[in-house]
């Protein structure tokens, strides 16, 4: 073999190994990164999803369930974040409740990372940032950026066509890894189906009255800045959207009916398969728009983009978009206020002994004014037994 060929082979092998080590370390750091969560004064217990179904015990999706129990009889509400980890306002709002909420009547259950597997990798070919950071008075708090579906490292292979269980409705192949297409789950199914089944077991055994699934959506998508409600939740959702639009939000929040024929989504299946009234909350996230520009951490957290704005000028969006964009404090603020208003509206429709009273969580105006980081606690400033990891 020629000396020159040998040299090229040696060099290319060396570069390949260096590339694999550098890239591999980055991927691994993302996959194994742990997010600290400070259990606030209201948290009375933390269980894991595996306690409700052995099929997820010890898996990547064996996530924490935070219990905030007043000890006084009342309603049980489940606030659910992290269905789609590329929608950070959802898990950040859930964490806001865990760290700040106090419950004076009833029980609040909170899930921060509903699909942990999906938070351990980002979407191929989309150049997503690996992490994002929220500034706080005590330093930056770092979070994993994730994808919409569970990681192929945890659930593989996908079927040619995903048949939703138990309806057998045909859905796109990758939706078997999409937590919001696998409800009500299957005990012996693939990881994401087992995960939703475990959550259904939790909802049924804990007798959840209200289920709230937090999301974000691209501005090009019509289901935007809205509450999608199951039949059982229509009264609460309609009144909540009217009150928030009239009194609190500069951009209105709508209310839509959960389609009966579209299977696998939480607003449909949780309501159909349990006693809970189920709802999904949506808020605008320009980061998800197909026509966006540079896909970086700034776009994720500030929600400003020239291309999305231009689309708005041409009337192609379902939400307003100007120079102020959709910052993370606005998005989390809308979710926090919508959850709190939903609980207040629920209380007006229930007898006193079936209510839930929650305090300590900032609403929209306060979050926009002070910033999201002002409400996150320093994990190093509390005892270790109050810190949990996602």
């Amino acid at each position, binding site marked *: *073999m*020629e000396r*020159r*060929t040998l040299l*090229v*082979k040696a060099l*290319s*092998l060396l*570069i*390949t190994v260096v*590339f*694999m080590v550098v*890239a*591999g370390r980055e*991927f*691994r750091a993302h*996959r194994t990164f742990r997010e600290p969560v400070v259990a606030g004064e209201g948290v009375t217990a933390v269980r894991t999803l595996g306690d409700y179904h052995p099929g997820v015990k010890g898996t990547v999706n064996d996530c924490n369930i935070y219990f905030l129990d007043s000890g006084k009889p009342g309603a049980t509400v489940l606030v659910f974040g992290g269905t789609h980890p590329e929608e950070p306002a959802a898990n950040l709002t859930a964490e806001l409740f865990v760290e700040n909420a106090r419950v004076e009547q009833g029980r609040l259950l909170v899930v921060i990372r509903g699909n942990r597997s999906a938070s351990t*990798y980002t979407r191929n070919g989309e150049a997503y940032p690996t992490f994002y950071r929220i500034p706080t008075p005590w330093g930056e708090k770092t979070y994993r950026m994730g994808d919409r579906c569970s990681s192929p*490292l945890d659930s*593989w*292979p996908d079927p040619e066509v995903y048949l939703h269980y138990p309806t057998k409705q045909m859905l796109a192949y990758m939706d078997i890894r999409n937590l919001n297409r696998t409800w009500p789950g*299957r005990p*012996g*199914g*693939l990881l994401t189906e087992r995960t939703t089944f475990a959550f259904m077991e939790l909802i049924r055994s804990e007798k959840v009255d209200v289920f709230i699934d937090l999301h974000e959506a691209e501005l090009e998508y019509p289901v935007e800045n809205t509450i999608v409600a199951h039949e059982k939740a229509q009264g609460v959702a309609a009144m909540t959207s009217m009150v928030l639009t009239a009194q609190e939000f500069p951009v209105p929040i709508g209310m839509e009916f959960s389609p009966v024929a579209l299977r696998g989504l939480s607003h449909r299946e949780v309501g159909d398969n349990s006693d809970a009234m189920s709802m999904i909350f949506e808020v605008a996230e320009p980061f998800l728009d197909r026509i966006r520009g540079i896909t970086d951490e700034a776009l994720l957290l500030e929600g400003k983009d020239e291309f999305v704005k231009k689309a708005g000028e041409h009337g192609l969006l379902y939400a307003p978009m100007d120079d102020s964009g959709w910052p993370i404090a606005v998005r989390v603020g809308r979710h926090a206020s919508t959850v709190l208003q939903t609980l207040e509206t629920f209380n007006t429709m229930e007898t006193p002994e079936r209510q839930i009273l929650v305090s300590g969580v900032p609403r929209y105006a306060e979050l926009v004014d002070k910033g999201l980081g002002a409400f996150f606690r320093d994990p190093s400033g509390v005892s270790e037994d109050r810190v949990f990891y996602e």
Partner: protein
Amino acid sequence: MITLNGLVTAAYYAMTALFGVVLCRNFFRTRNAQDAVLYCIILVPFVLRLLRVK
């Protein structure tokens, strides 16, 4: 279903390993520098998948 999926996954990883070995073998055997560089580039995703990194 979990068992069946596990078997397919195991077969997939075995196939990945096989392709990785063949690519390595071709890399060491080839006398063409351009082919050698190409084998190296192709090898990366196979190794990262086998190590369950990506």
